[in-house]
């Protein structure tokens, strides 16, 4: 009514209009690339022109060159890169296995669920890395404390996500399963696990991110080898080039790990097929 009687021409308000396909002829992914490259170029320029001291900021081109140099250095590969990636892989495997198993246990036992869920809910409020010093005193500086802290950091996100997955079986499917007289094992393999897969996969992806953070952070705080230690050591000994190259390598490694594991996990996720 009001549209017909109004003298103003009616215009659909902005919050209801569909998203424009392009702004200034560029789609969102193109804008993301432009913004990312512009940031890189700004850093390169700031460093090359001397706005920021070369001792503080290394141009990205030199970071990349130094990182490539590190990748051909066998001492760096066997001493820093491989141990870190190995630890991340081990943490991810342990946290993933433990997490899914623990979630299944919580799903089975009502008491366990009631007892742990409130604690799991506040778990990430507590900085888990605070216990790292305890473990260093108990086990010494080495692989064991890093592994324990990283697993402790990564496992809970796997548990909570997997539990959501186990809870996602529709009640009607469970009723059907009972009507078909499925055994406990059949129920597990034919109903429960397939239903939980998407959430378990989401939990495992987060678990990988948390494993990476856990390993690199503990190496960074206190350790004798690994990528995190390499960066901390480069900082302490004023090797700015090495420090930036290490940071760049970690970004690349984290990105590659995320993309490949996400692709692998995406294959078993029936929702994405």
């Amino acid at each position, binding site marked *: 009514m009001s549209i017909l009687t109004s003298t103003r021409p009616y215009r659909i308000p902005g919050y*209801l209009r569909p998203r424009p396909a392009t702004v200034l002829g560029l789609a969102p992914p193109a804008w993301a690339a432009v913004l990312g490259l512009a940031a890189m170029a700004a850093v390169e320029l700031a460093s090359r022109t001397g706005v920021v001291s070369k001792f503080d900021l290394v141009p990205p081109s030199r970071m990349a060159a130094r990182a490539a140099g590190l990748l051909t250095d066998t001492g760096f590969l066997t001493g820093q890169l491989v141990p870190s990636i190995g630890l991340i892989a081990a943490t991810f495997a342990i946290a993933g296995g433990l997490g899914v198993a623990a979630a299944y246990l919580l799903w089975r036992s009502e008491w366990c669920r009631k007892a742990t869920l409130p604690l799991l809910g506040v778990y990430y409020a507590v900085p888990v890395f*605070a216990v790292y010093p305890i473990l260093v005193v108990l086990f010494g500086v080495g692989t064991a404390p890093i592994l324990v802290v990283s697993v402790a950091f990564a496992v809970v996100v796997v548990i909570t996500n997997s539990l959501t997955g186990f809870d996602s079986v529709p009640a009607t499917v469970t009723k059907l399963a009972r009507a078909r007289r499925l055994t406990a094992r059949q129920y597990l393999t034919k109903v429960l696990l397939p239903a939980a897969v998407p959430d378990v996969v989401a939990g495992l992806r987060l678990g990988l991110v948390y494993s990476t953070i856990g390993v690199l952070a503990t190496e960074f705080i206190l350790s004798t080898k690994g990528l995190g230690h390499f960066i901390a050591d480069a900082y302490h000994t004023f090797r700015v080039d090495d420090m930036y190259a*290490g940071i760049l390598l970690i970004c690349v490694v*984290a990105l590659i790990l995320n993309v490949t594991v996400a692709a692998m996990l995406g294959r078993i996720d029936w929702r994405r097929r």
Partner: protein
Amino acid sequence: MTTAETVVPPVVRQPDRTSRQSRIATASAPVVLTLGLVGLWWATALVLDSSVFPDPATAVQRLLVNLESARFLRSVTGTIVRLAISYSLVVIVGAAIGFALGLSRFWSDAVSPLLYAIYSIPKVVLFPLFLLFLGLGATSQIAFAFFSGVLPMILMMTNAAAAAPRLPLKLAASLRMSRAAVICKIVVPNALPAFTSALRLTFGLTFLGLLIVEMFSGVSGLGYELLRNIPLARMGDIIGEVILVVVMALVPVTALRALEGRIHRRYSAGGAK
């Protein structure tokens, strides 16, 4: 009656919220578990009878002794002040940027991939950059703690602001509400529950970031106190400090959870209002 009961499969649990007994069981289970774990710790300490594995009483006693020292108190208050500053900045800056970004579908699509990419980098390894540019003091620690918490805040608020339901927006359009009125009356109330969840999650991340850099840069603060005791192998002190960290994390998070519950009940879909 009996036939109705046999239809419901035992796997589908319907917790009876009205039953007082089950409420008590729900509340007591986590307490029982916590007490059990503390008991286990105590028993292990008694069996081992080692100076590097003190019992809970010793740890608490060491903490109380430490709290009387002026230097330790300065470290604790320093951490609390830095945490308060960085967390306030996370909430104000992160929520404002995230909300503004979420209002524009195009720009949130363009910027989010970049933010997610930065988010997936293990942020600890970037801390040397903060030290290089901001120096070895409170500024770099606050800045890093802010950086640890602000990205999730932005991302969650972007999603929350973008998730305004379509139907009320259409109603607003037919009522010719102004953009400001739409934001105040529809978008903000709809984003409130997600905002309270983000408040709780980012608190943990900010505290974690702060504690890690205090461990690394080691000038003052709780993180420094924790690491300082490793070479001295003073386990009682370390565990006492970990207990303090847990309390410092759990008190605000419990309050935030209560707030979250209230807001969710009031503003979520299907709520009273």
